[in-house]
């Protein structure tokens, strides 16, 4: 009996491992799909950068003819992609030339990481706080009934609750 149990357990563990591997593999495949296309990369990286002319627009969305900067920046981006530079290298080159404000969002490095971490820390803390609040509310003593009668609980309460629902439901 115990041998059969352990075999079933190991089969289950194997199945779980296979599922995890399959999921990771498919995630990797999905992540790589389309990554090699230069037009897609141009579009993606171009939307991660700002035009520096002062229009405060995303590089590929800067729409005024005669902008002193956006055409040159787009050409530089295309040239870097044609050279085969990685995304990180392209961004690094732009930051060196135009300063950190050329990136449309903070990077995930150094203090910039805080931009992304803080909202999620707030989310976790918020959830924690709600759990604490819910616990304290659940543990709050039930208000005493006038006349000292004990409150109805359990199945009897459920019965009354159902009755009330039936009677008041539209």
């Amino acid at each position, binding site marked *: 009996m115990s041998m059969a149990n352990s075999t079933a357990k190991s089969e289950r563990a194997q199945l779980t491992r296979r599922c995890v591997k399959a999921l990771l593999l498919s995630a990797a495949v999905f992540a790589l799909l389309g990554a090699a296309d230069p037009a897609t990369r141009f579009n993606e990286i171009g939307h991660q950068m700002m035009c520096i002319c002062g229009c405060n627009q995303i590089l590929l969305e800067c729409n005024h003819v005669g902008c002193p900067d956006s055409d040159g920046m787009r050409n530089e981006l295309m040239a870097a992609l044609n050279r085969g530079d990685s995304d990180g290298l392209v961004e690094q080159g732009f930051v060196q030339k135009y300063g950190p404000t050329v990136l449309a969002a903070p990077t995930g490095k150094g203090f910039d990481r805080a931009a992304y971490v803080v909202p999620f820390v707030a989310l976790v803390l918020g959830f924690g706080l709600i759990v604490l609040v819910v616990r304290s509310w659940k543990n709050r003593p039930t208000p005493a009934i006038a006349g000292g009668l004990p*409150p109805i609980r359990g199945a009897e309460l459920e019965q009354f609750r159902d009755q009330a629902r039936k009677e008041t439901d*539209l």
Partner: protein
Amino acid sequence: MAEIGSFALLLALALSLYSFLAGLIALLFQAQSPQIATPLGSPSLRRAANSASTHRGSTSTLLRSGSERIGETARHAGIATFGAVFLASIVLVFCAFRDDFSIAYIFHHSNRDLPGAYKFAVLWSGQEGSLLFWSLLLAAYGFVLRLRYKTDARLFAYASVILAGVQIFFLLLLNFAAHPFAIMQGTIPADGNGLNPLLQYPEMVIHPPMLYLGYVGFTVPFAFALGALIMKYPGEKWIQITRRWTMVTWAFLTCGVFLGAHWAYSVLGWGGYWGWDPVENASLMPWLAGTAFLHSVMMQEKRGMLKMWNMWLVFATFWLAILGTFLTRSGIISSVHAFAQSSIGDWFAWFLGITLITFLIFFFKNKSHLRSEHKLESLVSRESSFLFNNLLFVLLTFTVLWGTWFPKISELVQGNKVTVGAPFYNRVAIPVALLLLILTAVGPLLAWRKTSIESLKRNFLWPTIGAIAVAIFLMLTPQSWGSAFGLKPWKDISYFYSLMAIALSVLVTLTVASEFYRGGRVISKHTGQGMFASMVQLTHRNTRRYGGYIVHFGVVVVIIGFAGAAFNLDKEQEMGYGDKMTIGPYTLVCRSYTDDDAPNYASEWALLDVYKGGKQIGTMTPVRRFYKASQQTSTMPDIRSGLNEDLYVVFEGLNPDNGHPILKAHLNALVMWIWMGVWIMLGGTVLALVPNAPAPVRVAAPVRLERTEVAPVATGD
């Protein structure tokens, strides 16, 4: 005329000061006068005490009647403030129509050839005028509030004093820091600088008033909340009084925010409607906090819970509206919106500080009054769904605030600014918004106190199956069917988000529809009416609940519109006579391009024939204008809107070498859904404001009851 305007502003300040101080004195005396009590003791002592108490009683009566009279004069002064501010506003508009360029504000924001509607809009087009307009709206809200004081004289008196306090701040600003009637130095110019070209668009005549009605309107629930806190007001009556104010204000703010988005879409010419600019964020933050308040306030009404939280939320909403103004006027955060930067930022900082301290003092002094009356019975209940709903709304508010301030924080910490644009918000805010959408589906169907697993299954099984089926359908269909089809989530994260948003929207829609259907079915069974008539009756019986569902449905339609952004296309091309540009299923053919001259502006435009499936479906005329007075250019994109997508064409300029126009075409998917969704949201809000129809009275045959001992039932309430 400028003298009349200046005098009206000074008079308004004096009246507001009187309304505040006299109202405060009246409330202080009223708070002290009822404390006289008759002591117990021997008859002689009682007689002596009674005689003293009669004397004190008459003093107290005198004091009370005196303080009531003072309070009444304060109320009248508050009402008169509206008259004075209204006069100042009328004078400013009149000066704009008279082209009185001796007034600096008129010179900077108007010109002779400006069309009449925009001359009217001059009132809120610049810093000084918009502050005057803010003050006017606050005075108007105060006017209505003070006229309706009989609903609850004491609470209204507190709210009136608080409103007067806020009004004093704006009138001090107008009189001493940003005077709209300041006179030009030297010779009076023949013509003005003109209105900012971006503001010369019909929506700009109504967008700022809507937005300001929303911003200013949240002062009213805040004033009532703070008043109730100060006077330790028993019960939830202040919430019932302010419920309509809050909903109307929220509707104005919603309208203002989306009109701003529509204006950006129609005028700025970059093809989008939301750029996460600090000014846009400033309008979104109070909207998010106000929406959280509208939800959580139901917990207080129904269950007497979240009293402290609601107090904080209403304060945060008011405070964020002021903070947004501070952000955009102080120059602390850079924005593309061209508000003049001046020293008024310091005034706002002080005001924010004072309001925060005032609120904190009264909150900590009286917070014992705000204890919850009930306990939570189950995590699977309407109560907990409201808690999570509030968490997510507040988190979104915090994220927007954090993103808006982060460039400044980064500068302080690491010495350099960073840009926090759309990619940041897409990464951080979209997942939270999707979670919120799940709660929008789940929350309304959970019962108060506790929901059983069976009930969950019954309510959610079919909507969930429907949502999954739609998601699979959208994944498997070919992309050639249209924008939202052929959504392969593994191709791009934006496709994943879009698919999730659409599937969850379907889930919300089905749960909302099932609520209407189940309620309608019960009424239909009892009355024999048709299903539609039964659903109408159901809605009329509880307009707030079913109006709320319609608002949720509107939100879902808006979300589907947002999800369309993943499929947007754009193309830029120089186009001579007969040149073609193809984008998606459309082909644009340049038939002509020319220029034109009007008194206020000169324009260049192109005439394009639009073909779809080889058949001409219309013509488009994108325009670029050059405004003579301000010497600035502005684009007027031509937008051909459809349910599936918008064809959006911008005249970007002329090639200096050959004079050919350079055009940019955008194919923006599902944008129309956003504007439709907003109308539905507003319709739902209006419906929620309609009073409920009385429930039908059933007369039953009398039943003989036997006298039995019945034990009381504890229901937890």
